[in-house]
């Protein structure tokens, strides 16, 4: 056990040994300050020593983290610290960037996502992504949501597809606003509606994990509140990772929080603990707004 590991957290009601047995995370030599959950969930995504290079420049240094199933994990940290970079590793969107190289291991449900046998297309269907800027396709609202199910052959009939589109839009709490104009272009919606459309589009392929990169950065407080509500509901069925610049948002929606700084994962732990008694000076400084 490394010195930095804070297993003596008071809230824990599970013996440390049990937690250790569940994950090798706490055996690893690492500078990250870690606090396990009081009731650990099984990890959906396991990342070990992930480093990312853009050309010769290293953007991420040996990040190791477990992302628990059916809960919300928030990534926070100052701009340029590598949150988006790490998020993009999880569904291998970094592959699409010229000159980007990833090392380390990432496993989804225990299987390596970099294994040659793994189909990246299937991975991205299981790990969906909502981008920082709403990016609806220049197609109708219906076609936007139907796009994923179509390419993955999820619907057997037109009625099936209609059903998927309707339920995805409902889950994204957009249905009432657009049910009469499904065949109008998705680009004609407001920014907040577009972002919910993008969430519906991601839900429609029924992924297991949804990655959200600052999904509310372009939205007003009301639209933000709706999306946060939505995230809260989605976590019943999905594992959610969200990047955010808003401490309040991280505190409101997430169960666990990870703090990145200069490409390092500085600290990760239960959200309430990170925000009340962070184990690292840098985390404390960032949360209280002293830098970043």
């Amino acid at each position, binding site marked *: 056990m490394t010195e930095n590991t804070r297993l003596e957290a008071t809230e824990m009601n599970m013996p440390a040994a049990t937690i250790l047995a569940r994950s090798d995370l706490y055996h690893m030599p690492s500078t990250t300050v870690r606090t396990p959950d009081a009731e650990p969930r099984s990890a959906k995504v396991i990342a070990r020593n992930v480093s990312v290079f853009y050309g010769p420049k290293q953007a991420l240094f040996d990040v190791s983290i477990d992302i628990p199933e059916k809960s919300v994990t928030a990534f926070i940290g100052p701009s340029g610290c590598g949150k988006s970079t790490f998020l993009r590793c999880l*569904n291998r*969107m970094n592959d*699409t960037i*010229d*000159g980007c190289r990833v090392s380390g291991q990432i496993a989804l449900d225990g299987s390596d996502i970099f294994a040659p046998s793994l189909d990246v*297309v*299937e*991975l*991205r*269907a*299981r790990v*969906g*992504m909502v*981008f920082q*800027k709403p*990016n*609806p*396709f*220049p*197609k109708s609202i219906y076609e936007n949501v139907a*796009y*994923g199910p179509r*390419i*993955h052959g999820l619907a057997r009939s037109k009625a099936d597809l209609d059903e998927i589109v309707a339920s995805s839009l409902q889950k994204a709490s957009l249905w009432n606003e657009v049910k009469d104009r499904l065949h109008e*272009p998705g*680009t004609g919606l407001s920014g907040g509606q577009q972002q919910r459309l*993008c969430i519906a*589009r*991601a839900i429609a*392929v029924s992924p297991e994990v949804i990655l959200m990169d600052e999904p509310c950065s372009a939205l007003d407080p009301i639209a933000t509140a709706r999306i946060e509500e939505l995230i809260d509901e989605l976590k019943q069925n999905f594992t959610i990772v969200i990047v955010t610049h808003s401490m309040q948002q991280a505190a409101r929606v997430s169960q666990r929080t990870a703090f990145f700084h200069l490409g390092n994962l500085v600290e990760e732990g239960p959200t309430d603990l990170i925000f009340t008694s962070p184990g690292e000076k840098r985390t404390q400084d960032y949360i209280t707004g002293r830098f970043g």
Partner: protein
Amino acid sequence: MNTAIIAALLLILLGIAYQTGCSRSRSLTLGGEARLHSRPVYHGALVAIWSLTPALLILALWALFGDTASRAYLLAQLPPETSSLAPADLDGAIRRIRQIESGFGIIGDAQPWENQAAEALREFRILTSAAIIAAAAGTGALALWFARSRISLRLRARNEVERMVSWAMIGCSIVAILTTAGIVASLLVEAIRFFTFVSPIDFFFGTVWNPGFSTTGHGSAGEYGLLPLLWGTLMVATIAILVALPIGLLTAIYLTQYASPRLRGFVKPIIEILAGIPTIVYGFFALVTVGPFLAGLGNLLGLDIRATSALTAGIVMGIMIIPFISSLSDDIIRQVPRAMRDGSLGLGATQSETIKRIILPAALPGIVGAFLLAVSRAIGETMIVVLAAGNSPYLRLNPGEPVSTVTVTIVNQLTGDTDFASPQSLVAFALGLTLFAMTLILNVAALYIVRRYREQYE
């Protein structure tokens, strides 16, 4: 010599005016907290414009009317016996005198009266040009003084300069528009003259092209049916597009979506070199390489393909258009936001699904625009067809046979001895007008399509 002096004077005037404007306006602020409405450079520019414009106007007037003035002066100098000369001879005499005066291109010995007139002309010329230069400089200086006196803290020099710049730009675009209008008008006038010889119905719907020779007189000798030429044009252009569109488009897709930056940096310039090859060189290539090759291939396959045929010209023209289509489509595909692509890939679409369902539909209007521009380029192309299409204006279905196109026929009708009163030459204008109308329609369609769908992903 004169021109150089004038240009130098204008430049000096410009420099002085600009400096005056700058320093005068700057000096206004020396007192203290006073602030200029516009920065000194604008005052400088304004004074420069003010003082240069009248000088340029005077010079322009002289350029327009100087010739008439000197001619009138010369006529007054000529001895009385020349007044009985016919207008054409009078023109000849004046031309001779001017040649003697300038010392270039004198034929035969000069008569004494001619020398006298030339001497007078020289004096007149020296005097007037001195006067003009003095007048230009004088008004320039006057205008400079006036503009300088206008400078004040509140003078909105920036706005005035901006307004003048925008007028200048309007002027430039009017020049472009007028040129186009002039070309169209001259085509139209000559084409109408042609239609006094041959009825438009015979021209547009005739199926036989056999214009005969212009020496046969002014009657409508020969037949002027457009259809064989139009057919040849369309056939060659279609073959060219069939070659260029798939190759160009797939190249663009490959270069934008699949190729590594290094490969792209290497391949793209090479493709663009294709665009830099003169069309006459493509013509050689068609004539010497592609034609015989196709003929040989036809032999092997048991097809009758001539060395110079619609097929040869079309294929080579297609090769010529490839870079045109590929670099236009490349730019258009590149403009599809990366976020669209990422959105699709992030949903688990493959690269080819993303291209097929997101990128190409988003880029389609632009690609259609590129396609139509390429078609109008193919229709207007001349050199390759002159060399490689066989120049045989008959209606034939087989692309392996020689054809002729509108452009080639224009070249044919206008080379050699031309008499612009005969239908044999005038028909070129009717053909040109047809060609112009075709490409115009295509371009307008392209613009319309591009504009209509442009805001799709904004």
